[in-house]
């Protein structure tokens, strides 16, 4: 098998809090192939955003490796990291907070070009900016507007143009559409998919919305309290969810289906427990209807069928 574009090996990111160590990302191993999209789903506090930032070394990992084209970027010095950053970019969740309010649209898009010294002169720079704006569907007349004058959808397009400026190969998309209205959300999702087709980009697509993740991803990783509990191809995961949490998550999505009106659906009880100094063993066990004595043990991701991994002794045993 050829080396994947990106691979994390037992990646960990802990934060110090007054109450103890917060295990935001706790031993996550994933791979993303060239031209693929890995959807990372989970509820708030599951560590998905921290994972995205740690992969790009915006946060220094506590332990573990991030391999980009087979090289561990966590060991890179400043200069090599600078070069790597040109290929690995990020699109942010909040179209308001992610753009510097003091800079105009063209200045925002120019920043990575200036920092990366990617243009020889002003003329070339303007050409590049114009090209990028066209790519993301921003009319040239917005070049001198300021972010606060534009709506959420256009602002998110600016963020995408900025991420594309350095011609990256891999982009972490952190909830890029969750702040947008549905009709605008669809425009942005289409744009991201078109870009992927045109440029052969790879995405790590972080979201809490399972229908969005199903639409855009080739593979999906489900996270719960800092750990990846299930990882599979999109079709496989939706057709054959194994982890009780994945199943609960799928059951909880309000799909458009009026036959379900007034009927009881199976919901999981309780709420997410604290990620601070978690007890060993399966972290979902306190809410799991099938929890047994065996769940007190550490659950490792096991491959149950080709490309389908799950971290649940019961599910793994059932399948085998």
């Amino acid at each position: 098998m050829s080396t994947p574009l990106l691979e994390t090996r037992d990646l960990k990111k802990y934060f110090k809090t007054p109450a103890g160590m917060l295990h935001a990302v706790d031993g996550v191993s994933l791979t993303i192939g060239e031209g693929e999209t890995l959807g990372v789903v989970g509820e708030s506090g599951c560590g998905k955003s921290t994972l995205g930032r740690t992969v790009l070394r915006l946060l220094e990992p506590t332990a573990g490796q991030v391999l980009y084209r087979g090289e561990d970027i966590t060991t890179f010095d400043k200069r090599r990291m600078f070069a790597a950053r040109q290929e690995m970019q990020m699109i942010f969740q909040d179209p308001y907070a992610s753009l510097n309010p003091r800079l105009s649209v063209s200045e925002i898009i120019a920043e990575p070009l200036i920092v990366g010294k990617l243009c020889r002169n002003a003329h070339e720079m303007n050409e590049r900016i114009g090209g990028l704006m066209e790519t993301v569907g921003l009319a040239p007349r917005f070049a001198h507007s300021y972010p606060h004058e534009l709506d959420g959808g256009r602002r998110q397009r600016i963020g995408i143009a900025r991420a594309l400026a350095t011609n990256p190969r891999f982009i972490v998309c952190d909830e890029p559409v969750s702040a947008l209205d549905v009709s605008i959300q669809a425009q942005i999702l289409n744009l991201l998919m078109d870009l992927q087709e045109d440029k052969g980009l790879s995405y790590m697509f972080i979201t809490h919305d399972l229908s969005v993740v199903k639409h855009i991803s080739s593979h999906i990783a489900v996270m719960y309290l800092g750990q990846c509990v299930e990882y599979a191809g999109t079709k496989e995961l939706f057709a054959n969810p194994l982890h009780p949490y994945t199943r609960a998550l799928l059951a909880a999505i309000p799909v458009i289906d009026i036959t379900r009106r007034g009927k009881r659906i199976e919901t999981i009880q309780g709420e997410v427990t604290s990620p601070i100094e978690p007890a060993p063993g399966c972290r979902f066990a306190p809410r799991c209807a099938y929890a047994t004595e065996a769940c007190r043990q550490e659950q490792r991701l096991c491959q149950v069928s080709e490309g389908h991994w799950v971290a649940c002794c019961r599910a793994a045993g059932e399948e085998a």
Partner: protein
Amino acid sequence: MGNLLDIRHLTVVYHTEEDEVHALSDVSFSLQKGETLGLVGETGAGKTTTALAIMGLLPRRVGEVQSGEILFEGRDLLRCSDADMRAIRGASISMIFQDPMTSLNPTIRIGDQIAESIRQHQPDMKRADVERRVDEILEMVGIPAARKREYPHQFSGGMKQRVVIAIALALEPQLLIADEPTTALDVTIQAQVLQMMGDLQRQLGTSTILITHDLGVVSQTCDRVAVMYAGEIVEVGTAEDIFLGKTHHPYTTGLFGSLPDLNRETRRLSPIDGLMPDPADLPKGCRFNPRCPHCTALCRECEPELTARGSHAIRCHLMGKEERA
């Protein structure tokens, strides 16, 4: 069966420093006893304004009801005195707000916040009875009564929203307005809360207006649906009309096309082009015409009327024509 709520030609304007914003124009709909109506639309469509107008809680000095009637059990709420409205709010009509994090007073124990609602409307009730009622309602929303002496910051988001619901249902109102009650919550918690709300509603026979942008939630909970766009109702009908019917307002069609469907394979979504118009500067004719794929000369000139066919009404020139033909 009579209508519990009848809104007729409601028009609301916000006077801001710079502009006059047309928040609601000629909004009419009704709600029967025990019914759940979904009010669907995107940001700025006028959903929350409708709710606040019913509650009589439009921002003072800024929001103005220019015309229309809100008939609740035959009584026009817009003509009620402040004192009468206070007696209705919380007792006959309650509202649940979107953000559970900020909806509760951080310095008052949650039990007292629920009790306040009861005492306000039943001042003669004995202290012990009030306490008993608080315990009862807390258990009803799935919170152990022992936690009533805790403060809001000791609760998680989902639990806080349960408290907010408990406050709203404490006096078993006839009408509950829920403004995006689960938007701020995670899906699994959303499922729990929706389930609980549905159970209570059936148990108490409350009529509900559910405001949301999530068509999935609407399809699973509502009897009837009204779709709002730029301050108008563009389509209204039974859940069957909206989710199974063939003819739709082009905006509704666009809304459905924008959603990634879990049950179908679609490579590309078919979103609506463009943006919602600036409510301070609305287009002439049909408000959807700049974004409509079927726009005609007539659409740019005249505003269409809401035309009903049975239980299903659509505000579109194209539909009108079809009907006449």
